[in-house]
């Protein structure tokens, strides 16, 4: 999971559907797991689309089509809406995707991806439409995601766009460091915040003991 990001070149798995919500990425019944076993979540990514009710693979779903593989998922707009479950990001990471490209991500899900070493890349609608076309024409279409340069390139057409990622997250991804590693280093700042803000001005503290 904590693998350093640099330049990723890969073929893509296309999912040209809008508003794919986290219930579709990983159905609610998988929230019952009490571990975060990557393989388990990866095996159940898009479960209800991917498998028939008898558990056999649904051959019409893209993940069961051997023509499409790679570390990059290309999804249509408003990807990851709905429930905040981080399991959706675990499933995407667990399946082996390191990048998701879309023209629009739901907020919480986008953050969840970043926290789990999956890079959400926001591209323009026209770039996305062209990318879907390239992949439809040739499933082995390669996309290059250059994290240091913050660019994404459709190698079939040569078209390239830059994408946003904040300097802090970029640093974390490139160094395989997570947020908790960072926060644990800031304890003195937290304690001085608490000393500045105690009492009923900050009713969050002091008022809830005895439980």
């Amino acid at each position: 999971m904590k693998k350093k990001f640099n330049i990723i070149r890969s073929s893509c798995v296309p999912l040209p559907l809008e508003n794919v919500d986290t219930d579709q990425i990983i159905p609610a019944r998988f929230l019952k797991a009490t571990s975060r076993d990557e393989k388990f979540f990866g095996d159940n990514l898009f479960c209800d689309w991917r498998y028939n009710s008898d558990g056999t693979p649904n051959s019409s779903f893209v993940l069961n089509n051997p023509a499409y593989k790679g570390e990059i998922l290309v999804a249509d707009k408003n990807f990851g809406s709905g429930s905040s479950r981080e399991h959706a990001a675990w499933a995407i990471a667990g399946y082996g995707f390191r990048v998701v490209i879309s023209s629009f991500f739901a907020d919480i899900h986008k953050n969840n991806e970043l926290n789990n070493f999956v890079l959400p890349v926001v591209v323009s609608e026209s770039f996305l439409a062209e990318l879907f076309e390239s992949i439809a024409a040739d499933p082995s279409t390669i996309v290059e995601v250059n994290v240091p340069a913050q660019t994404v390139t459709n190698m079939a057409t040569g078209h390239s766009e830059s994408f946003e990622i904040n300097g802090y997250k970029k640093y974390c991804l490139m160094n395989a460091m997570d947020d908790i590693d960072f926060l644990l280093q800031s304890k003195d700042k937290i304690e001085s915040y608490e000393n500045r803000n105690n009492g009923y001005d900050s009713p969050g503290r002091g008022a809830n003991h005895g439980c």
Partner: protein
Amino acid sequence: MSLIENLEIMNTLFDIIWDKHVVQIVKDGPTQIYIDRLYCHEVTTPQAFDGMRARGIKCFRPEQIICMPDHNTPTHDQDKPIEDPISKKQVDTLAANAAEFGLAHYAMLDKRNGIIHVVGPERGLSMPGMTIVCGDSHTSTHGAMGAVSFGIGTSEVEMVLASQCILQQKPKSMRISVEGSLGKGVTAKDIALFIMSKMTTSGATGYFVEYAGSAVKNLSMEGRLTLCNLSIEMGARGGFIAPDETTFEYLKGREYAPKGKDWDVVVAYWKTLKSGADAVFDKEIVFKAEDIEPMVTYGTNPGMGMGISQAIPALDTIPASGHASYLKSLNYMGFKPEEKLLGKKVDYVFCGSCTNGRIEDFRAFASLVKGHKKAKDVVCWLVPGSWMVKQQIEDEGLDKVLEAAGFEIRQPGCSACLAMNDDKIPAGKLAVSTSNRNFEGRQGPGARTILASPLTAAAAAITGVVTDPRELI
């Protein structure tokens, strides 16, 4: 007037609470925000506690963290062991983690147990001016108390366990005002479904919403909780309402609310919590309360809602790029464009959840069914949001009214809202539900969900078909 004063009156309440909780702004990165309260439920926390163990660390501020199981708890026979081994394991794991890390834990059957978003406000654990998080998207509910409250992922739960902080980008701010007075039979739920139908499920993405306007001001605390609860369904990071007398009145005397002299001090502070007269929002939207009628959803996201007397939008009103998802959604629901839902046969009715599982919701439900009988073919689940709500139902004698009409009250929990326990709507069945999500399979594999208010749910429960509650009031 000095420049400083000018700046102050330009601040939104969101800015005021947020800025007060900044620990540091990371260079070219997120802001480190201090969290006053973390709520933990059994579904989204086990992996966070695992992470803590793997790192070999303890909770930084255990006294600010409250745990309770709600998603998996059965709604009957809670005194017996949970039958589903996986549900049992999650519930047991939370108890074990709370004990190991020294956290408050309201176990099943504890009188303080219930759905976190119902329990937090009713125990006075969620208060104005706080920052509140939980690994659950409906954490926006607590915004009704005048708090900045939002859902987080499990990695972020682990951050708070470890440091009482999270790292966030400051969202943009939006004010949604609803002005005027609500018509007969129109509730907070209808306001929310109406707003969502106008905003779509992504219309507020990236924003924190302040609800304002006379129709919002006039809502009870329960109504405000319902409205804020649904903020996430239009993509907002959270939603809140500035605290006022309604808020203070509600909190006064609650278990964890400050008492005596402390109460006066804290109320004086809470009264300062409002957006400046010249506050600048990144986006402002105004709706008229008179335009809202009882609402129902017809599709598979909460933004697909309409007034109950209206017909499902025609295909040509939808942008061409959305036709495939639109038809897929209607196909799942078994509905056609341009058809009305009034009169459709209903198989299940669910009243409950963190959206509409509070005492006022059961009062509304009971008021409508009083003197009627439950329709024979409808299966109806009435699930209080907490043991406290159940107790209130009994204290007010609503259980008698409901029983006389053929209904029974179950034990508290999330229940059919997401169907992690046994309360699953069977495949193909049509449910009118007071919960918050009508996604495919949300209430059970293949279940078809119409979201509505408790009044509209009650109307369906006695007539057996989708019915305009105004006809029965």
